[in-house]
């Protein structure tokens, strides 16, 4: 199966054939693009049909010979694998620790009900946190690299407990031969100097929640007392960036129906000095005023194209930055096993509530039908993990012929459930946007390689 796409950079069109099963990417001229679409039964537009009809027989024969050569070597129209894939539900490698169900902000789109996950305000005790670390180590099997992610609510409201858990994990990790790394996500409001220094020294990755321009941010992210806190948050985030150096971090924002011109927010974050940026589409029920709707998808795709052009341009200057969803490693990407495992939610990755209850991921915390067990007693409902283990792109009907299937990891099970009623269902908007971002990633990688190869 092949996928064709094109991307226009500064008026110059680039055409691509992408072989889904082998992962081969080919840049082609327009004639080969049309011929390939025609040969592989892909739809051509009216003008494309006319252009195809105008190609002479000799040129068509040349193109066919090149296509045949690629097919013969297995880098075009490679066969689909047979069989199923079952994720490993016997090991745990990563935990998302809900260090507190409380927050010092009130964001309009918060999926966590203002930080409490529609339950009650609760703070994880150091004892529960240590039990979580013990659970992680005990169930990690032979895996050496393990992860603990501090999430919330707002984790900095319980920083002392974070510190105790980290110290304990370091000691236990050394005792058991495990390399445990930590990530913390924060809204930056309480990211004072002391907290910043601690995070910088102890977190392998830090995620700073910031939506972009002041107007964008203030429209949806609020202090509990409604005061304007944007300048405080930005200062804290910028100061952290200054001490972070080359260590891993992201500024992570959300775009909504209120800022479909989100490329402007991304560039604004870059202008503030951030060079590791991620902006994601909000996921909300259709009834929510900020929800992204089907009729906005084409506009969003155009905005991603605008982002891509500015991205390529800035990366040639001292405004270089990395955009999370345009990253792609064409040479050393993840193995097939990883591609089919996806995020690992419910199997190798689980979330821990403040009281130590285990759920497939942060999106399911508090949902009793997805209760897996707790960190003290262990796995109580293994059948929940088995449900997640059985879901992969090889078995999902929507994924079988999708060009993104070996890149998306199968998508978000929580989104699939919330929008289709099934864990193995589909969140269509998410799929459409992911496919667009993936095409742009491939095009950007190609264009940047071309620019690199050009004599200076």
């Amino acid at each position: 199966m092949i996928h064709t796409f094109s991307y226009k950079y500064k008026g110059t069109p680039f055409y691509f054939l992408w072989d889904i099963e082998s992962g081969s990417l080919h840049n082609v001229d327009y004639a080969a693009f049309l011929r390939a679409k025609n040969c592989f039964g892909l739809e051509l537009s009216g003008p494309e049909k006319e252009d195809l009809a105008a190609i002479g027989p000799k040129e068509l024969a040349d193109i066919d010979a090149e296509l045949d050569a690629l097919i013969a070597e297995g880098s075009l129209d490679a066969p689909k694998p047979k069989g199923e894939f079952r994720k490993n539900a016997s090991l745990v490698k990563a935990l998302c620790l809900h260090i507190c169900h409380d927050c010092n902000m009130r964001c309009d789109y918060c999926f966590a009900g203002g930080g409490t996950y529609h339950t009650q305000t609760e703070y994880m005790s150091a004892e529960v946190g240590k039990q979580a670390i013990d659970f992680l180590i005990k169930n990690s099997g032979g895996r050496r690299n393990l992860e603990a992610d501090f999430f919330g609510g707002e984790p900095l409201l319980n920083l002392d407990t974070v510190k105790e858990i980290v110290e304990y994990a370091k000691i236990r990790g050394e005792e058991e031969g495990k390399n445990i790394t930590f990530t913390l996500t924060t809204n930056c409001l309480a990211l004072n100097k002391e907290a910043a220094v601690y995070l910088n020294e102890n977190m392998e990755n830090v995620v700073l929640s910031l939506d972009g321009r002041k107007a964008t941010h203030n429209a949806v992210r609020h202090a509990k007392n409604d005061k304007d806190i944007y300048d405080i948050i930005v200062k804290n985030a910028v100061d952290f960036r200054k001490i972070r150096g080359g260590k891993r971090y992201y500024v992570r924002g959300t775009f909504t129906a209120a800022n479909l011109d989100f490329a402007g927010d991304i560039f604004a974050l870059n202008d503030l000095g951030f060079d590791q940026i991620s902006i994601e589409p909000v996921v909300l029920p259709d009834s929510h005023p900020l929800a992204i709707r089907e009729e906005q998808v084409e506009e969003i795709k155009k905005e991603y194209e605008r982002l891509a052009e500015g991205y390529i341009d800035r990366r040639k200057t001292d405004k270089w930055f990395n955009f999370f969803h345009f990253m792609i490693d064409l040479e050393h990407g993840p193995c097939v096993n990883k591609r089919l495992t996806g995020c690992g939610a419910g199997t190798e990755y689980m979330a821990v509530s403040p009281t130590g209850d285990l759920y497939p991921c942060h999106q399911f915390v508090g949902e009793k039908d997805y209760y897996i067990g707790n960190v003290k007693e262990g796995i109580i409902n293994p059948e929940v993990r088995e449900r997640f283990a059985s879901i992969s792109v090889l078995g999902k009907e929507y994924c079988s012929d999708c060009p993104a299937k070996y890149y998306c990891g199968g998508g978000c099970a929580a989104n699939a459930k919330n929008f289709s009623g099934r864990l193995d269902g589909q969140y269509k908007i998410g799929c459409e946007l992911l496919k667009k971002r993936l095409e742009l990633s491939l095009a950007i990688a190609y264009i940047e390689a071309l620019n690199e190869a050009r004599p200076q």
Partner: protein
Amino acid sequence: MRHIATVVKKILVKDHKTGCGECVASCQSACKTSCTVGNQSCVNKDERINIKVKDQK
């Protein structure tokens, strides 16, 4: 070839250590709802695709 230039070939069938599970869980990074795996590298290759190429050398 005159009409087709291969950018990358058969990356899904390359022979490298597979299924070791030592790579970072994708949700540990920036996403939380738009997790992908295609934007990661194999941990055994020790590449960091999020930094400038020249800074890796």
